[in-house]
């Protein structure tokens, strides 16, 4: 199944790309099967994600889904953002995300979990 237009659009013009200096939390997730790597940077204020950036090494699905995910979590409370899973990201592409890409390529939600853990660790110290 080929990629739908929304996947191609996010792949061509990814939102929120790049490293973030002075992030409150940084998290990395990788896929051992095919080697995709996603890094998520977050800035948090009053329990809300006020800014987010990502970097992704991987196929078009990995890049587009990272971009989509950052759009979905921006402005959300940390708690709500953590509830967004692979399937919800896939659904945001309106049937444009091939089924066989969901498990292996949508790993940004896992990177967010790591970023939040990193943020919480930093706050304790």
């Amino acid at each position, binding site marked *: 199944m080929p990629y739908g237009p929304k996947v*191609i659009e996010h792949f061509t013009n990814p939102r929120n790309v790049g490293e973030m200096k002075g992030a409150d939390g940084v998290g990395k997730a990788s896929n051992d099967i095919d080697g995709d790597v996603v890094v998520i940077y977050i800035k948090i204020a009053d329990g809300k994600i006020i800014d987010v950036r990502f970097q992704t090494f991987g196929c078009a699905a990995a890049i587009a889904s990272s971009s989509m995910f950052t759009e979905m979590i921006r402005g959300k409370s940390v708690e709500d953002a953590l509830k967004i899973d692979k399937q919800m990201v896939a659904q945001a592409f309106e049937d444009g995300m091939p089924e066989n890409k969901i498990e292996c390529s949508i790993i940004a939600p896992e990177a967010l979990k790591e970023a939040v853990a990193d943020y919480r660790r930093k706050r304790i110290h």
Partner: protein
Amino acid sequence: MQRIYFDNSATTRPDPRVVEAMRPYLDQWYGNASSLHTFGRESFNALEEARRRTSKAIGAQVREIIFTSGGTESDNLAIQGVAFANLQRGNHVITSAIEHHAVLNTCRFLESQGFRVTYLPVDPEGVIEPESLKSAMRKDTILVSVMAANNEIGTLQDVRELGAIAHDGGAIFHTDAVQSIGKVPLDVSRDNIDLLAISAHKFHGPKGVGALYIRKGTSIRPLVYGGGQERGLRSSTENVPGIVGLGKAIEISMAEIDESVKKMTSIRDYIIKRTLSAVDGCYLNGSRDRRLCNNANFRFDYVEGEALVLSLDIKGIATSTGSACSSRDSETSHVLKAIGIRNEQARGSLRISLSRLNTMEEAERYLEVIPEAISRLRSISPVAMLSKSTVKGG
């Protein structure tokens, strides 16, 4: 947008002369080649003319050619057909680690049926050392199958030498020549070939039609039983328009081979030289010189192949990659693996495969686009966190 087609190892554009030659057999002479009436005779004659053209292209006798549905069927018929027909002589088959799946998966099937298969390794350029074939040969080796030219990295094998070794050991020699027609001249007598697989759509013919050369006297069993067409080796009403297209395409390819090879070689060399100099962290996969005139295969640090193919497609350039990324099929190319490229590096591979229809202007356009596409993907990638040893691939 002007689209550039650089994926000719996947399939080629049918030559307008081929389409023209096929047309009467679609709408006017639609007879069954087995029928006695004029319709049938017209089809029969067209079939035999295509057979003559095909045999001429590879130095075979007319009766040694049979038509099939394509390269995959030809490889299957050659390998399964010979293996099962020669069981009383032995059950050992030799092939290489870099064959097309049409050969590899057929050999795996043979293993499931009790045959023993040796998969010869290749050197870092993708070459099978004749010595390694010599030492793999056994008394019970019945068949050796080695491709003439590799579809991914374009490495050319010394078919003549490998065929001679197979014959010395009393084995039948098959070659998958799907990528070679119109690019590498082959002669079945000179090159010690007993079976040779051809696919029409790889040389500007139609899809769904291929041929198999079978040396006279080779014992082989059919895969498909029925009305006994193609000397009983491939029953089924012949695909006359397709076969006519194959015949026309192979005739044109051979008539224009010198000119075509010269043109493709110069574009290929330009693309290789300029890509390597224009992009950092870029390497050529395969051999610099011992390769198909239409093939360039690169790998790029910190870039994933599928994302690169899509980036180029957005700019109107059609290419392919050895990296298939999905939960169903996360294997990187078995060919890149066989030449010793680590998974993480194999993920950034890009194949450019030319035809005689491509131009130097198209190469120029590609060279404008490629550095941009690579640096865009690297700018999205967490390069600093991807030291080569930490990126896993699969």
